[in-house]
């Protein structure tokens, strides 16, 4: 059960201030925001996998997956690639600048179902942004979950996000295994080269007692899911986070309709079983 400030008008965001900006790659920055209003700050919480609508006033509003974990209270982080008008404006924000944030919206990953299971994370590129929320949740509630395997694929070594956490934090946690791959290596890259599915051969993934969480570019899902099914994962043990264009985030504008469901209200997390039944989903 989430406790939130009840809004009279769901479209009007709360004002938040940029407090930290961490450059991750040439194109990605991790932003950290704090709400101006003390009551909102106290009550704002979320489920890993949920998203917020972020406004840069005068430019617009767009949905962003939350990258922080609710287990670390008072921290709201969004990992954002500079790729459009709004994200370009975001990248120019300075510490102290004001934005609008409303949410959280969407269903998020089913944390209670994941409890007691081994977890396999498969992330491609900035697909790691929403999965990081779950990974750190699991790290903070270590006893509630089994073995954790993180497979991360990226175009090249420079475009990897959260490298410090991958290499210095997560890989050091007992029963956490981190494997990385890149489509194209460079002079210093000594790791795996190939798409993310090539990592399946490099680790022992046991589908028993396991659940898989996937997020990445649209093209990735089909191949990852195929391999997971071959490994013996059931269709409802595979969770996908989908991306769609959104304007309202609250089931009104219909931009994010996928099949007969709405990504903002019914998703963005769907089991593969559900996704198979949604036309054009993956």
């Amino acid at each position, binding site marked *: 059960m989430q406790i939130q400030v009840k809004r009279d008008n*769901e479209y009007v965001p709360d004002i938040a201030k940029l407090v930290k900006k961490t450059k991750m790659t040439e194109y990605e920055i991790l932003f950290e925001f704090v709400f101006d209003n003390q009551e909102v700050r106290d009550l704002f919480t979320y489920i890993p996998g949920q998203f917020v609508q972020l406004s840069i006033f005068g430019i617009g509003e767009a949905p962003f997956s939350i990258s922080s974990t609710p287990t670390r209270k008072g921290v709201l982080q969004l990992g954002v690639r500079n790729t459009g008008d709004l994200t370009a404006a975001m990248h120019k924000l300075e510490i102290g600048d004001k934005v609008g944030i409303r949410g959280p919206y969407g269903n998020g990953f089913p944390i209670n179902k994941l409890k007691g299971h081994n977890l396999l994370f498969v992330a491609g590129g900035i697909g790691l942004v929403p999965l990081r929320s779950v990974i750190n949740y699991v790290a903070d509630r270590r006893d509630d979950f089994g073995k954790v395997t993180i497979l991360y694929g990226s175009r090249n070594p420079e475009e990897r996000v959260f490298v410090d956490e991958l290499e210095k934090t997560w890989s050091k946690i007992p029963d956490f295994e981190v494997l990385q791959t890149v489509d194209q290596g460079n002079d210093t890259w000594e790791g795996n080269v190939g798409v993310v599915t090539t990592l399946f051969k490099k680790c022992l993934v046991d589908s028993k007692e396991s659940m898989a969480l996937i997020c990445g570019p649209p093209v990735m899902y089909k191949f990852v899911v195929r391999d997971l099914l071959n490994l013996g994962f059931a269709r409802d043990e595979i969770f996908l986070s989908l991306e769609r264009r959104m304007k309202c985030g609250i089931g009104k504008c219909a*931009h994010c*309709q996928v099949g007969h469901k709405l990504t903002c209200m019914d998703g963005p997390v769907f089991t593969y079983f559900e996704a198979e039944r949604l036309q054009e989903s993956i």
Partner: protein
Amino acid sequence: MPTYTIRKDEIPKLVETLKEKYEVYGPVPRRTSHVFDKLDDVSKLDLDYDSTIMSPKKYLTPNRQVLMRVGLKETTLEDTANESTMDTPRILFGVHACDINGILFLDKVFGGKYQDVYYASNRENTTIVGLNCISPCKYGFCRSVDKNYVFEGYDLFLTEVSDTHYYVHVGTPKGDRIITYAPELFSETSIGDNDLFKTALRKKHENHPDELYLDYIHETLDMAWDDEIWDELGELCMNCGSCAMTCPTCYCFDVEDDVDLSLSTVERTRKWDTCLFHDFALVAGNHNFRGHPPSRLKYRFYHKFRAAIHDHGEIACTGCGRCIEACPAGISIKDVLHRLQDYWASSPTVTGG
């Protein structure tokens, strides 16, 4: 339940009386068709209209609705939701059953878990005087989609029972208020009036063709996903969005920040949008989930006749026929459904027409 009659030639007087308390909107002639417009000149009101170019949804979810005003300097937010609770309440006069059903559909879309306060206040501020269609309109097929009558959604409802009189049903206290504002114009009905009403309804049912079989339409669409009809129609469709703009149930919107010339104030504004437009499913990084034009036209059908059943328990079509009239490519939603059902439906399709 009290019912009334009102003389047709007293309608202008009724509207004049109501204009003291309301802004009254109704169908008026515009070139070769009709439009809903403010009745500054009551003599322009033409209740004998076929259909209107746009549906009355434009008064409940207008093409341009300011959601909030933002001062850029200090980042101040001014919620404009209360502004849409206009000082003067509105009456929509002479709304056909299809459009009332369209409004009932929009009620579901803008209600639910997250209330849309802009729509809700426009709706609250609006009184609807419905009008029964004894004869069908040129492009409509309301009876085929079960939208040729109203259960609720009207405040007053007029049925033409003779050359001189309307029979009046009162649906809500809002409608009752209209009666109390001009009591001398309404007479309580007699047994004779009730007979006339029944005769009028019978005439209506005889006049309205039931020409389209829509049962199992969601199953049909499941089967027709790869049908060549979508590419064929996609070639014709210009993705102009006229069908969606004129549709009483299409509600998709875009939200834009409109900045004033001095770059000091922003009006965050929602505007009508449609799934037929190229950028409807375009996301950052230039990935378009529906970049191929036929996929957008197909999606419109799947949303209306499949997803809407999931989301709101009914199809998103009132059979008003506006899209058929508006389409510059000559695509008829009725003919498309006919073709699909003829080929895919598990039961016989045509029951008439």
